[in-house]
């Protein structure tokens, strides 16, 4: 089900709740005159529900939704309506902050953050009262929206966003389901063997205190496990939403999409510098944040984040794409012909398969920090390489090369190190490699 999306250039944001009612028609007319045909508008739950279960869709002048939809229709425009959970204070009604379960969202919240590191507490999607309250709000909203959906009305698409909870650092607290972790390890003894710990059950192992110990022991693996379980929890929330609400609340006239906030793999195909993703959380605003479960800082994630920021700056200056590999198996990911892969000794199976496919297709990979050796099961990664690399001398040290399938793997022989001239050294290694392969 879906209505066609307007091309990017013809869509523009317009927040009716931030604009005086008297100005709507003028502003919409201007938008139309400037060549746009679709507006994107947020319906902020927190703005329409100031008091619990009392919804304002007609009392406050600039919240009169029907008037807004009529004004849009009158100007011959369409609307993409954005609902759900955004990195914005207007998302949540005040009463939801009194609920027990809180999510911890890292990074910079739009309009709130002044930059720097912070963890913002917001009501958790796993809190029953919040969930029921949100559905009740949607029911009320749906009764209005359904009158203005395409083709009779201007609402062409409805987007429901859950992406903020993609980077919740508190997702496993308070006994949230651990099915994915139980399925992965089967027995707590197996988990203890991998982590070198002595937990009696999964619940305590992945509690706040347990997670701190797991992260101290095996930071990469603990972040992988945390993200895997959180991802599964969010998937189950979205499935529940589709089952309980979607078809019932909104009619099929408009296109309805659910956004989980995960980056699309297609974008990575233009990236020449690619990161192993376990330590890097992506916020919906596009910013990156290190994976610090429950807010506990761990050095490897902090280092990965600093590297990300460093490469992002230099890649942007040099117009080079920067991206990250998929984490889990099943996510497809076409890659650029030449990639520099920033990673440590661990690589998930999902990421590994992506790289193998890339090499089989004639791609080239440079590992400036050494070849990763282990996956999430602590099994050795089988690169199928011979013992000896052909060595080349670059300006900053030696780099070894081996053919693999139709492509090549390049690995530095000496430790690259995290110094401020890292970018220059990586670039010179890169030009050495390209000279060898292409003779220029």
């Amino acid at each position, binding site marked *: 089900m879906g209505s066609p999306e307007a091309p990017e250039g013809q869509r523009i944001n317009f927040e009716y*709740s*931030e604009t*005086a*009612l*008297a100005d709507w028609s003028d502003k919409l007319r201007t938008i139309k005159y400037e060549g746009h045909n679709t507006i994107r508008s947020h319906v902020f739950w927190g*703005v329409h529900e*100031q008091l619990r279960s009392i919804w304002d869709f007609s009392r*406050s*002048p*600039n*919240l009169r939704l029907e008037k807004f939809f009529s004004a849009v229709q009158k100007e011959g425009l369409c609307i993409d309506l954005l609902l759900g959970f955004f990195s914005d*204070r207007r998302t*949540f009604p*005040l009463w939801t*902050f009194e609920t027990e379960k809180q999510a*911890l969202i*890292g990074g910079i*919240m739009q*309009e*709130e953050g*002044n*930059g*720097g*590191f*912070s*963890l*913002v*507490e*917001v009501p958790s999607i796993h809190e029953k009262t919040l969930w029921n309250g949100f559905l009740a709000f949607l029911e009320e909203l749906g009764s209005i929206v359904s009158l203005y959906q395409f083709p009779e009305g201007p609402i062409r698409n409805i987007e429901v966003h859950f992406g903020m909870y993609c980077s919740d650092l508190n997702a496993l607290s308070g006994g949230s389901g651990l099915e994915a972790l139980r399925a992965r390890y089967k027995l707590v003894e197996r988990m203890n063997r991998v982590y070198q710990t002595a937990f009696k059950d999964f619940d305590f192992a992945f509690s706040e205190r347990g997670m*701190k110990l797991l992260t101290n022991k095996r930071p990469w693996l603990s972040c992988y496990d945390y993200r895997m379980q959180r991802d599964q929890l969010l998937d189950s929330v979205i499935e529940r939403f589709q089952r309980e609400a979607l078809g019932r609340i909104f009619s099929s006239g408009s296109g309805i999409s659910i956004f989980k906030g995960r980056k699309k793999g297609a974008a990575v195909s233009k990236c020449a510098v690619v990161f192993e993703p376990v330590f890097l959380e992506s916020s919906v605003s596009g910013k990156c944040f*290190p994976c*610090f479960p*429950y*807010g*506990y*800082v*761990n*050095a490897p994630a*902090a280092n990965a*984040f*600093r*590297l990300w*920021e*460093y490469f*992002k*700056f230099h890649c942007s200056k040099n117009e080079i794409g920067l991206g990250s590999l998929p984490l889990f198996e099943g996510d497809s990911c076409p890659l650029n012909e030449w990639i520099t892969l920033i990673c440590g000794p661990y690589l998930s199976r999902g990421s590994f398969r992506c790289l193998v496919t890339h090499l089989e297709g004639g791609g080239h990979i440079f590992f400036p920090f050494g070849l990763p050796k282990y996956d999430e099961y602590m099994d050795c990664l089988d690169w199928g390489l011979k013992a000896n690399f052909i060595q080349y001398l670059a300006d900053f040290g030696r780099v070894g090369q081996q053919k693999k399938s139709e492509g090549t793997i390049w690995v530095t022989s000496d430790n690259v190190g*995290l*110094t*401020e001239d*890292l970018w220059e050294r990586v670039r010179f290694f890169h030009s050495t490699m390209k000279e060898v392969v292409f003779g220029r």
Partner: protein
Amino acid sequence: MGEGPLLPFNDERGCVRKMKSISKYFTPPLMSGDRDRLYECLGFGEFSLWLLESCDGVILHSRKYIGLTEEPLLGDPRSLKGFHHPFISCEFLGERLKKSPLISEKTLWEELFPFPISLLASALTNKTELRVEMTPVGLWIDFKRLWEVLTLFEARLANSELNLLWVQGKNAGIPILFHYVRRKRVRLGTSKELEETGERHLKNSSDIQQLTDLFRVRTIFYPLDLRSVASCDGPPVRNLTRALEGLLQKSGTQEVSPCSFQELGL
């Protein structure tokens, strides 16, 4: 004149209450782009600063700022040879990052200044979860003085429901509208309409009463002209402090004389 939406604010007892805003001065809040413009108008366009954020001995952020451009670094900048630049160190005390509520009160300093200058509010208000330090000491003393003057200025702003601060920098200006209720800051912001309104009404008229008529409530106008202090030799912090002190002395409790607009070239 219509009514705006209900806005939450904290009253004197810290309880969250709601008030209606008047749509005529329903300006959007100060966004990061506005704050950047303001930063340049305030004379910090070339101001350089290094920053290190850390927690539990782990470096989180290391950056070099020149005005609004920032360059990430990999290590502690103090380890660079001959390092002697203005530097802010922010350390999260404990093993975890600071948790903040989504809706929280910000000081005027945090509203007006972009990161990392906004961080200094934590040191100046003695927040215990962060340790923020600045070097050299002279610069830190300058910032402390600016904080004191800004606090006095806010006390002045709080006397009136609406205040329009026009910040005139070397190359451009920006208006900021402040809204206070019972001496508590409710909102501050700017908008294109505010700029146009200000220029339209004030360029063609020397009657400051027009502002009060426009907003239907007593409005005080504060022209902050940084050009008059820009020629003085000193860092932008001191220039801004001097300009604010001058403004406080000139304005008193009276509305500013209309001839100030002519001085601004409006």
